């Protein structure tokens, strides 16, 4: 018996959110005596990189290296995970919430007759029943869900657990999956992805700009700050609506929900729909020229001032300290 973790990778590296899922699974397995943690990776990636997943708590990594799985074809990935779940005799599947992970988890919950809880924020309470705490109303509240099925799927939210990596190496084994043509009924014809940048949904620090930045030509100073901090850049909805920034940078209720340790908002008013996307951040810094901007009520630190004066100075101060 073991807890299975579906891990994702990009640009040759296992995603940090997937490592968190492994650490979560390990803590869960210890609590419920479910034995070991087995991770499953799909598509081309090096065995050396996969072995490092041991550092987060997996004893074994199953690797379905078939290059047909390189693209995240939802049905093919669901089929592969279901086969691994049965093969290791798992009762619980853990995965990180993501664009692909969510889609795969939903299909698997039917395939595996497994109760599914998404946006999980902490380890389940398993002493009587199986109660899982998750974030709802876009981070404005929590709910405890009582899972009544034998098989279970937990899609965890970023920062649900503190990730500590050690030097342990996991054993990597080839895993052969049987895929049929119907698994590939849909085709991915092209992918456009920012490479080399820190990805917004996974970033530890986010520097975000709003309409107060006045125009796309002024983003240079925010990009500079992001570079100094190793941060991702984000924006408010009107900024991506007018086309100052790409759509995938739009943060909020109808955009990306971020959960960084530090969120820096510059020239964003702090409308409730924007806050809905950032309220899981550990620390929020707001820079706005209007002392009455609602964002200050949700902030930990703030500067009342003109972004065009404050940001260049702040960039200098950051460079000096870091």
């Amino acid at each position, binding site marked *: 018996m073991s807890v299975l973790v579906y891990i994702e990778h990009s640009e040759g590296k296992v995603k940090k959110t997937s490592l968190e899922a492994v650490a979560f699974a390990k803590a869960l397995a210890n609590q419920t005596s479910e034995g070991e943690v087995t991770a499953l990776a799909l598509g081309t990636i090096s065995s050396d990189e996969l072995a490092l997943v041991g550092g987060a708590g997996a004893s074994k990594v199953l690797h379905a290296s078939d290059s047909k799985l390189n693209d995240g074809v939802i049905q093919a990935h669901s089929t592969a995970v279901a086969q691994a779940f049965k093969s290791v005799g798992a009762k619980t599947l853990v995965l990180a919430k993501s664009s692909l992970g969510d889609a795969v988890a939903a299909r698997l919950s039917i395939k595996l007759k497994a109760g599914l809880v998404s946006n999980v924020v902490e380890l389940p309470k398993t002493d009587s029943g199986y109660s899982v705490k998750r974030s709802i109303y876009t981070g*404005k509240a929590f709910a405890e869900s009582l899972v009544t099925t034998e098989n279970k799927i937990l899609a965890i939210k970023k920062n649900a657990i503190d990730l500590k990596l050690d030097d342990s190496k996991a054993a990597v084994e080839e895993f052969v999956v049987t895929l049929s043509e119907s698994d590939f009924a849909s085709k991915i014809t092209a992918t456009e992805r920012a490479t080399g940048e820190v990805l917004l949904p996974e970033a530890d620090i986010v520097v975000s700009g709003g309409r107060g930045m006045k125009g796309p030509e002024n983003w240079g100073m925010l990009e500079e700050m992001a570079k100094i901090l190793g941060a991702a850049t984000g924006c408010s909805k009107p900024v991506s609506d007018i086309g100052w920034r790409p759509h995938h940078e739009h943060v909020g209720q109808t955009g990306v929900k971020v959960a960084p340790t530090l969120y820096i908002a510059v020239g964003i008013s702090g409308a409730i729909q924007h806050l809905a996307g950032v309220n899981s951040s550990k*620390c929020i810094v707001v820079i706005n020229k209007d002392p009455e901007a609602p964002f200050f009520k949700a902030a930990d630190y703030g500067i009342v001032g003109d972004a065009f004066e404050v940001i260049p100075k702040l960039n200098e101060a950051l460079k000096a300290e870091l």
Partner: protein
Amino acid sequence: MKILVCITHVPDTTSKIQFTADNTKFDTTGVQFIIGPYDDYALARAVELRDQTGGTLTVLNVGEAETEPTLRKALAIGADEAIRVNANPKDSFFVASQIAHYAKEGGYDLILMGRESIDFNGGMVHGMVGELLNMPSFSPVMKLEVEGTNVKMAREIEGGKEMLEATLPLIAGCQEPIAEWKIPNMRGIMSARTKPLNVVEAVSNETQAEVSRYEMPPAKGSVKLVDKDNVAELVRLLKNEAKVL
């Protein structure tokens, strides 16, 4: 083409979220309910497709009688008929089972939903229905074009998007910029009163993960302001006090 759009009836995005004293129910006092914003994108795209290709557009909600004004609004925006599955939407599996049953009965070519509901934010119902009906499901879809039975889509992925091709029937969980939200006009509002709104019963009672309790996050402390002429102080605070640098 027969299109089904599944809509949620959810608190307006500006609502204050509160629960009743024993933390077991959402407190609806003073709350305005709307069509889920993502469902509204799905509906807007469905109206465009129906107008473009002909056929019918049905909206469906799993909910109790209080959701009917929300279904009427969808009719005013342009749906031809509405179905209300008369039941409390107990969990995603329960909702997906109802949708799958009535979708099969209706034989729809295209089923559009929102990327996620804004109350429970699962982003799961479309995938579950897809597996129950053995249809491909895609989410979050930001572009969807239909030509005959071929469908071209763009799906958002971390840091970008992927282009997809598939064939009908299929299910998509939608988000912007798939279409612009539509506001009902006077003629729409008038005609919505006489369009059919059929109430049907739940086909199964099975659930897998019902909510037992709600909880509010701890209250936030007040902001610490730093003078704009002393930005180095902010860097020190972030480093030494908040320990986030």
